[in-house]
């Protein structure tokens, strides 16, 4: 009974105050607007099927699909489903959020969306994957795609904490802090061998992090990243700004303590403990519409390593959260403002136009009147979601 009341209250809260906006590329239904169109401005969503599961605690946005995790451990997905990435048991798109029913016996605590595959982690440490498996990125020891989540049996006796899905590869973080990788490895993004590896379909341990306590992982495009408990950022995979690929995790030489990392296809964002944002590969960011404007790569003179640069134009305002799309970026400021920059051709910056931006610009959310709210922002390849939480859910 008590649980029911709690659930009802959660539903009530969800309907009353949690608000969700989306904008950007929408041709596969990923915006949840019920339309197959791009949106240049934030659209306030009305999604009873989403809010009836209770407040959303986390979104994972992939190539053209979205995974929503409710605070009650339920999972809903929508957008492109042609590779089975929605986990609905069929390979079709979904215009509206639909529950992943085969996970209903589990309390899901973490989700990740790649280009066309998906990962789900339960509170008991089970890992499930579905979607495109043609590069081995589902970790099942084969190259087949699956349209319903399948448990990754390699980790049957391990407690999985997180999964991070890239374009064609996956990373897994275990409770004991080990990092595993599988899928495409051509650019070194698996971190498992000096040799150029085409792909592996079973998890292999990423080398060079064995003695490091890793607390979070990230993957996007052909990039991989991990953050250690002492704030060090490790990158591997495709090189940034034309620097060579790294086949093993490289420790970013910097005196900053990082607390969060977000990866795009050609850039990385990192948030410091002092709430400042740094970027790798920034010379490419916000000039895609006119690549001739690209600034020369900023590299350390003695190595060919790309360097972390502080994101200009935030004027000392503290940043609470960062998110990266394939070619755009979004942050939430301490003032509850969402700022975006990067590639804008599909409206993914939410500024009402299709212009690129090289520095962060404020996004105006229609219908946002709650000043006490906290915001979260999430980026898919070419689209963006924002959630207004009535109060801090954590």
């Amino acid at each position, binding site marked *: 009974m008590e649980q029911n009341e709690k659930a009802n209250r959660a539903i009530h809260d969800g309907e009353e105050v949690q608000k969700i906006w989306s904008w950007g590329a929408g041709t596969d239904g990923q915006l949840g607007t019920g339309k197959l169109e791009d949106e240049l401005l934030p659209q306030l969503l009305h999604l009873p099927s989403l809010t009836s599961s209770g407040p959303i605690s986390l979104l994972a946005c992939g190539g053209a699909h979205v995974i929503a995790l409710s605070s009650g451990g339920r999972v809903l997905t929508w957008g492109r489903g042609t590779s089975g990435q929605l986990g609905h048991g069929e390979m079709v798109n979904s215009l509206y959020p639909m529950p992943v029913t085969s996970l209903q016996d589990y309390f899901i605590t973490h989700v990740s969306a790649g280009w066309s595959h998906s990962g789900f982690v339960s509170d008991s440490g089970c890992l499930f994957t579905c979607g495109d498996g043609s590069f081995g990125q589902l970790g099942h020891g084969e190259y087949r795609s699956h349209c319903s989540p399948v448990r990754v049996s390699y980790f049957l006796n391990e407690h999985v904490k997180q999964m991070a899905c890239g374009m064609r590869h996956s990373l897994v973080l275990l409770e004991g802090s080990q990092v595993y990788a599988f899928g495409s490895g051509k650019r070194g993004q698996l971190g498992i061998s000096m040799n150029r*590896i085409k792909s592996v379909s079973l998890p292999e341990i990423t080398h060079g992090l064995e003695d490091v306590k890793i607390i979070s992982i990230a993957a996007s495009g052909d990039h991989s990243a991990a953050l250690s408990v002492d704030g060090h950022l490790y990158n591997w995979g495709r090189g940034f700004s034309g620097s060579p690929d790294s086949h093993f995790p490289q420790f970013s030489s910097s005196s900053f303590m990082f607390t969060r990392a977000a990866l795009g*296809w050609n850039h990385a964002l990192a948030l410091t403990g002092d709430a400042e944002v740094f970027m790798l590969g920034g010379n490419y960011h916000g000039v895609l519409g006119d690549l001739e404007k690209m600034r020369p790569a900023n590299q350390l003179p003695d190595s060919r390593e790309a360097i972390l640069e502080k994101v200009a134009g935030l004027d000392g305002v503290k940043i609470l959260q960062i998110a990266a*799309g394939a070619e755009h970026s979004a942050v939430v400021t301490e003032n509850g403002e969402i700022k975006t920059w990067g590639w804008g051709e599909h409206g993914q910056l939410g500024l009402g136009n299709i212009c690129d931006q090289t520095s962060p610009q404020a996004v105006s959310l229609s219908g946002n009147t709650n000043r006490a709210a906290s915001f979260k922002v999430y980026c898919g390849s070419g689209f963006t979601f924002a959630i207004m939480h009535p109060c801090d859910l954590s």
Partner: protein
Amino acid sequence: MSYDDVEIEDMEWNEELQAYTYPCPCGDLFQITEDELRLGEEIARCPSCSLYITVVYNIEDFLGDSDQKNKNLDPPKQQPVAVA
């Protein structure tokens, strides 16, 4: 200017589109048909946006018998690579 250079072996054959494809950052796919490759076309375009990639390939692989393509250009799922 090209968004990226992509080797043909990293592109996927899409039966429905009858084209080799590669993910575009907008969410759609860069596409190039066999006929285009046979004509020496190097640019794969995305139908949804202004971006394009340069396809790196050997034109001889596409000239002559069309069955030839299956010899060298299978999608990765048919060529799993075992790693020691």
